[in-house]
């Protein structure tokens, strides 16, 4: 228990960060009109693609002769990129359709 507490203590900055970011997430989207739920979900989907940064870090840390790490890391970068690019492009396509409306009227 003491060790758990000390681990939390060591990472206090992160814990604060975590809590504030959670509240921010709730706050930022709590007033969304239902109309935008799908694009918002899709946009959020693209944003968590930031995990690809972790994959890149893994790759940069791996030693060049560790083929297992390199291949798994490569796969991670690949799927992470899919998440980011696919997510943003799909969201843009959805929103593009909404954009037309105000111009017309």
């Amino acid at each position, binding site marked *: 228990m003491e060790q758990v507490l000390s681990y939390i203590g060591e990472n206090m900055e992160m814990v604060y960060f975590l809590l504030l970011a959670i509240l921010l997430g709730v706050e930022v989207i709590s007033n969304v009109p239902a109309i935008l739920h*799908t694009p918002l979900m899709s946009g959020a989907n693209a944003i968590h693609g930031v995990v690809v940064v972790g994959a890149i870090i893994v790759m940069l840390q791996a030693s060049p002769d560790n083929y297992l790490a390199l291949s798994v890391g490569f796969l991670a970068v690949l799927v992470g990129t899919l998440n980011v690019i696919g997510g943003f492009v799909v969201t843009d396509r959805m929103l593009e359709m909404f954009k037309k409306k105000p111009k017309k009227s």
Partner: protein
Amino acid sequence: MSLNILEICYLIASLTFILGLKMLSNPDSARKGNLIAAAGMLIAIIATITLYQDYDSGKLINYGLIFLGLIIGTVIGTIMAKKVQMTSMPQMVSFFNGMGGACAALIAIIEFQHHQHSTVTGFDGELLVMLLGLLIGSVSFSGSIIAYGKLEGKIQDKVLPMNQVINMVMLGTIVVLIIYQMVSGSDPLLFYVLLGIALIYGVLFVMPIGGADMPVVISLLNSFTGMAAAFGGFLYGNKAMLTGGILVGSAGTILTILMCKAMNRSLTNVLLGAFGSAAPGGAKSASGDQSVREISISDTAVLLSYSQSVVIVPGYGLAVAQAQHICHELEKLLEEKGVEVNYAIHPVAGRMPGHMNVLLAEADVPYERMQEMEEINSKFANTDVVVVIGANDVVNPAAKNDPSSPIYGMPILEVDQAKNVIILKRGMAAGYAGIENELFFYPKTRMLFGDAKATLQKLTAEVKEV
């Protein structure tokens, strides 16, 4: 020096994520918001590649593979996202979400390899973070792929006997194994056993949930992946990953709750699939002697053409039949005849909240014509004809009148206030909730049976003639 620049780049990326998400929640700025977040992502990725310093020198292969991965991912991702039909949007989101989950799980796997060599005594927080990233990432991956398959129609709904019990047992096993792993120290075998269980759990978790509940599940899995990404960020002390991950984690959770609320169901109810599995057959009572009245297509055409105001209620069935374009054509025809046509959008219409708006927008239906539930409900009393296309539970008056009904309390579109109601439906099957809809038996209700798209096509042709 370069490390500080890297941190600043992450700060900028984090800000763009927050700003992007904020702007995404407003129709006018949404598109810009998406682009801003994308720009932030680009900054984070480029900064990581160029500025991140670990053990440098002689890592040409690594850089080569990173760029190869980025390029292949970009090409495939762009093609997939560009080619997908608007109606298939939910499964596309689910697929990309699964990819993110896989990425988080793979990171945890490699980090575990490194971690094994370290000797931590006592509470090993890093291991816990890794395990959580691994588990949530892989549940999100396998779950999303199943959700994708189900929405694509490649995987059928299948409920194992005692599915819920099995799920509970698996969840319990996972918790126990995590605790054991934490106490006994990192054990590779156990690590991979956990990975396996998590993958299977993801499958079994999504498998019994019905098609109409998929959006809730996708949204939940979306927030899972966000959390998994955040755990990765925690591992590396990477602020961009943390902000992005947690934001999505919490925003996704709120979104999931909003969706559940709109259906007047609790999240547990959705997840345990109590509703879905009880659906077929049940609750068909008290309607045996009632009969519905049908209406012909030509009568419908006349009725619509001579109305002052018509409200179209599009539902899941319209989305499935891909009838949004023909629906818009009908609307335009009626407009030319001087009929006021509006769309009433229930918060959970379609496959995801807001999905119906996207579909209608794709068919060029003007933004102002799509009215949300609160707005339109007060207008039904002055509406001549309501056309319900492939929707059922969202217009069921039992939600207001019948306290014993499972959907009692769910906000509905009060179409029973209108002068005439026409229901376009494939047949008399009960809606998703598996309950009878008394609206069908009201004197002012007329049924128009058939496939939504085919019927609307015929109807449009008839209206032209009138």
